[in-house]
């Protein structure tokens, strides 16, 4: 493994993807260093969700390269990605509402060979999210929006991912819950070296927590810059974020 690949956990080169004839993503280039948080922001229809779906193989890229820790992910089936260390929490969070909290969480670690560590990871998630521990036997559809968020995030963490793809974690949640989620991401990054690629409409809270800000528009990356620069530079903000 080259030095380059250990420094940059995720490298995307010239990624083209979409659903029909006209691609949504047009030659995306993106680099996320290990142990950092990257926030992808942009208007509706910029291709943010499509980017995550292409990264995790839910849609097949028409061209380009996705490298995870230096390994090309092309042709890797979706269900294998979690074994490579990539966890994707989809938009709407994907809690399986017919299963209990405990079943949802266990599902996140079922693929692991190291059963003892899967058990430890499960306990850690219950420690991290107190409310889930109290509602182990409740069905997914009985949870509040905030609890679902915790469950989806916790379920991804049970797999001890290296890279976490998060699609709109703030969607439909109270500001206090959003702030808590963002703080948690930062905490995970500092404590466990987790790398996060976050897609957000909520530009302010995303850039507040991120190391790198990536602005997308109409299927292209228009600028990738340190988050604080995007946040604090008035000209950049006006030009790319519109506020």
């Amino acid at each position, binding site marked *: 493994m080259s030095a380059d690949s250990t420094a940059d956990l995720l490298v995307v080169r010239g990624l083209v993807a979409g659903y029909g004839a006209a691609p949504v993503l047009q030659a995306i280039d993106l680099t996320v260093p290990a142990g950092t948080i990257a926030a992808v922001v942009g208007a509706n229809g910029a291709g943010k969700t499509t980017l995550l779906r292409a990264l*995790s193989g*839910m849609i097949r890229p028409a061209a380009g390269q996705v490298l995870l820790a230096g390994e090309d992910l092309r042709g890797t089936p*979706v*269900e*294998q*990605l*979690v*074994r490579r260390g990539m*966890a*994707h929490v*989809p938009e709407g969070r*994907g809690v*399986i*509402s*017919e*299963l209990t909290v405990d*079943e949802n969480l*266990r*599902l*996140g670690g*079922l*693929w692991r060979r190291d059963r003892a560590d899967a058990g430890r990871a499960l306990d850690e998630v219950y420690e991290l999210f107190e409310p889930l521990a109290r509602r182990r036997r409740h069905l997914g*559809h009985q949870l509040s929006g905030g609890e679902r968020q915790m469950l989806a995030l916790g*379920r991804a963490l049970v*797999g001890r991912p290296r890279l976490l793809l998060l699609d709109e974690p703030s969607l439909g949640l109270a500001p206090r819950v959003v702030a808590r989620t963002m703080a948690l991401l930062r905490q995970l990054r500092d404590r466990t070296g987790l790398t996060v690629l976050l897609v957000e409409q909520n530009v302010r809270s995303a850039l507040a927590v991120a190391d790198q800000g990536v602005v997308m528009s109409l299927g292209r990356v228009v600028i990738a810059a340190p988050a604080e620069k995007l946040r604090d530079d008035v000209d950049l903000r006006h030009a790319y974020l519109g506020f």
Partner: protein
Amino acid sequence: MDRFVFLTIDGLSRGAVYAAFALALVLIWRAARVVNFAQGAMAVAAAYVAYTVSAATGSYWLGFAVALVAGLLLGALVDRVVMRHVDHTSHLNPVIVALGLVLLIQAVLGMVYGNEFRPAEAPFSRSALTVGGVAVLSPYDLFVFATIGVVVSGLAWMFARTPVGLRMRAAAFAPEVSRLLGVNVGGMLTLGWALASGVGALAAMLVIPTELGLHPHAMDLVFVSAFTAAVVGGLDSPPGAVVGGLVVGLLLSYVSGYAGSDLTPLAVLVLLLAVLLVRPGGLFAPVTARRV
């Protein structure tokens, strides 16, 4: 009163078979959203394999075991070779393909074995034991109850308590999310087909000796009854399928005992129609519908 006891036990014994067959339909419906109309024909095919093996070796139990294995394999085969390649955007497509499979399987069985009834032996006596002068149940009835009890509780345990059961439920409810969590959804679907077809083969092995014998169409009426049982229970509910199977078994037994056996096919259809009109979701329909 004696007659009532006899009819009740006979009904429960047939009902247990319908329950197993309905459970097989529910398994596939939950996993693949397909009503497997070919299940009867597939089960008969497995029973013919058992017949061949038993005839060659002289061992009923070897044939019985081979029937279960043949059922499992046939289910996996039908999924991998046929159903996987059917466009599921319209619910009608897999139904038509399944009906085509029925014709194909029955035609092949007819060509190989001939369209005649072949006697199917029962491994235990079918004459009822009497308790205090009342004919209660036969050793064969006991065998049916025990086998189906073991299979139903085994399946319930598997789905509720084992990792593979959790994977199968997750794959059925949310295939896309399950794939993201590392579940081999396609494999779970094949496993679901195999299990269902295996249970179907078991039901065929149990019911055929109580009817006219082995014939390519031997399971046609059983299929209609089991389908009714599954609808009565709500196609989505495994416990509903079991209760529905027992209800249909009892109903048919009473109708044939008190009103005449010619009326039983009619009674099944009347029940099916009534449930569809009054409570189309089945008696065990969940309170809220799932939005897809």
